[in-house]
């Protein structure tokens, strides 16, 4: 596999610039030339949005870059983002025939190359930009994250008038507030959102559905179908003593300050952030890695991942764990915090933890961490970031009469996006709980198909 060149770890921990540089033309063509162009194309079935992977790779191989982006955009409205943040190693690359020889095609890097090339050359890649919708029916999408943008783009391509309502002041959802600049530059997110707008999608920012207007209100405004994709927007805490101390952040808050509000440019930007010298990040998913690596770049001397199981169970992408290790993040595994202790000013001094051993697998199939009796020990730190997941945000859901919710308060929707209310569809983290960008995009795409079917049958 042709590796992407990267910023040196010693340098990159001092800046927020993107870590991998991306292929140049020569590298991209060389990697694309390795593709066997299998007639069965298992990679396509490995992709949640079914990109014609051999097709776009072949176009790169033959240096028809414009065609490669057109092929990508035919099925994927956000290729520059997917190329960067999709877990390809668990999807398309996992089923690549060359994977059996331990050397799959670097599909993510090639996707990124094609998308970046198009961006540099100001090519949208869509067959044609649609400026005004040809169908009368209006569709409302609630949430401008990966699920919403995908669904909106697909429906606009079909000719529907789509409005995306976003609560924050910038579109992108987790792509904007969550994933850091060094992994996904915001310029790229905005450029891809721009591509969606060029399809005729209307974006309404600072517009919190459930507060400024309800779904019923939107019905009165003439919207005929609704796609709810508000993400997993309610941070979980551990429920241990000391979590209200100053210096305890949810990963959502920490990352939102850094990414959406640009606290890393404080005081040029007004939003502050406190990092301290020693930082502990609880959890070991992608969000935990993002938080840890951001803390390092903000000047922390020591950053620790504290995780209750072992490296085998860590939910983060291998690449992200690898990057974190390269940058000097410490991993404290089989460790569960039980209390955070503060000083008289309400600041953090230390955290008391227990050591675990692994027991029988739990409902997630992963081995359950079992605390070892009498294994208490202390860790010193100034900042604790809880990256242990999010629950569904009830702000909108509470205002929709009769919408069926699951045990944890998530919307009950099937794989096609149907809920128990006929004009309401849902997808992404608000249905599944915290998952991946590409899974949310897949849900957005499925829902666009279901919404079209519903509107046609009316």
């Amino acid at each position, binding site marked *: 596999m042709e590796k992407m060149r990267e910023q040196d770890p010693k340098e990159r921990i001092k800046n927020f610039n993107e870590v991998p540089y991306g292929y140049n033309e020569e590298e991209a063509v060389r990697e694309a030339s390795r593709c066997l162009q299998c007639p069965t194309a298992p990679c396509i079935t490995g992709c949640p949005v079914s990109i014609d992977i051999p097709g776009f790779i072949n176009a790169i191989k033959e240096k028809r870059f414009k065609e490669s982006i057109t092929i990508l955009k035919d099925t994927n409205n956000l290729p520059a983002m997917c190329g960067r943040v999709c877990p390809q190693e668990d999807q398309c690359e996992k089923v690549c025939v060359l994977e059996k020889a331990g050397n799959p095609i670097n599909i993510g890097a090639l996707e990124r190359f094609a998308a970046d090339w198009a961006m540099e050359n100001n090519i949208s890649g869509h067959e044609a930009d649609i400026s005004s919708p040809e169908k009368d029916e209006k569709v409302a999408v609630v949430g401008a994250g990966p699920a919403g943008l995908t669904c909106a783009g697909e429906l606009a391509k079909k000719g529907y008038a789509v409005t995306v309502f976003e609560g924050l002041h910038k579109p992108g959802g987790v792509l904007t507030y969550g994933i850091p600049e060094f992994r996904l530059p915001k310029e790229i997110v905005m450029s891809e959102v721009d591509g969606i707008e060029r399809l005729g999608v209307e974006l309404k920012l600072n517009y919190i559905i459930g507060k400024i207007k309800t779904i019923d209100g939107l019905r009165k405004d003439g919207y005929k179908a609704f796609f709810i994709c508000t993400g997993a927007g309610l941070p979980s805490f551990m429920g241990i003593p000391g979590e209200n101390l100053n210096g305890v952040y949810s990963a*959502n*808050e920490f990352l939102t300050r850094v990414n959406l509000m640009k606290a890393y440019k404080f005081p040029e930007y*007004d939003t502050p952030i406190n990092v301290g010298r020693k930082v502990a990040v609880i959890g070991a998913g992608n969000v935990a890695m993002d938080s840890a690596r951001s803390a390092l770049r903000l000047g922390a001397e020591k950053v620790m991942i504290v995780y209750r199981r072992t490296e085998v169970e860590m939910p983060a992408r291998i690449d992200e764990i690898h990057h974190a290790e390269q940058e000097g993040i410490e991993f404290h595994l089989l460790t569960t915090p039980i209390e955070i202790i503060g000083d008289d000013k309400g600041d953090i001094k230390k955290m008391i933890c227990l050591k675990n051993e692994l027991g029988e697998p739990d409902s997630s199939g992963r081995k359950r961490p079992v605390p070892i009796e009498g294994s208490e020990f202390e860790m010193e730190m100034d900042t604790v970031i809880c990256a242990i997941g999010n629950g569904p945000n009830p702000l909108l859901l509470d205002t929709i009469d009769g919408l069926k919710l699951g045990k944890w308060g998530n919307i009950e929707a099937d794989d096609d996006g149907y809920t128990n209310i006929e004009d309401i569809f849902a997808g992404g983290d608000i249905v599944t709980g915290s998952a991946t960008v590409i899974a949310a995009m897949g849900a957005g795409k499925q829902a666009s198909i279901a919404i079209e079917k519903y509107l046609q049958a009316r």
Partner: protein
Amino acid sequence: MHKIVRKEQLNPEICLVEAEAKDIALAAEAGQFVILRIDETGERFPLTLYDWDTEKGTVTVVCQAVGVSTKKLCAMAEGEAILDIAGPLGHAAKTKNIGKVICIGGGVGTAEAYPIAKAMQASGNDVTVIIGSRSKDLLICEEDIKKFCDKVHITTDDGSYGKKGFVTDVLKELLEDGSYDLVFAIGPVIMMKMVSGMTKKYSVKTLVSLNSIMIDGTGMCGGCRVRYDEKPHFACVDGPEFDGHLVDFDDLMHRGDRYKDKEKMADDHYEGECKIGLDKKK
């Protein structure tokens, strides 16, 4: 963008800003707040809605210039535009069928008590208002409140106007002399703590409105969490109204101070830029 249609300086520190925000005005209820962002480099910060006009399509906030964001807002002029306003957020205050109420506003909190007291009066409750400030020139909203309420008590710390002392001094007298169904207090955390401490002795239900540090205001960041009834609650989505007898005010004060050093840095940076700007103009 939200054009400012009216700007008034209520006292040297506090200004009133009325800006276009039609859909927010249509949805707004007493007790709710909005999140503002003044410009591209600005913070997101919450302000309680002072008033809203569904016909003009405007919302009004009252703001005390204490940090960068509030100073930026107070420095704006009519005709200029605020970059972002999102809302209305938080639960509306319950204003119906309460009975005898005392509404207390301290400092800039007086502007936050105003819409609630007004809505309570309009719903037929018996409303008494106590407003307090450090001195006469800092007192705000007196006229607006007297328009709907004839039982208004005023206190100033220095005695330059009304009764010398704190709002709690008047509250104590009222609670001694009569029975009340509810006390509603908005102001500095220390004031809300003192009020809640006092009403607890008299067993009068007390609501306070909490204005913690927030980013999104929709429950997404958890930065505004307060210890309430021994458990963490989010001021933005669980509040902003809470039972004053169950709020951990000391915790709230600690948390309110958590960016003190950074706020000072940001303020110095802002003041520095302002001075450079003035030099350029010269």
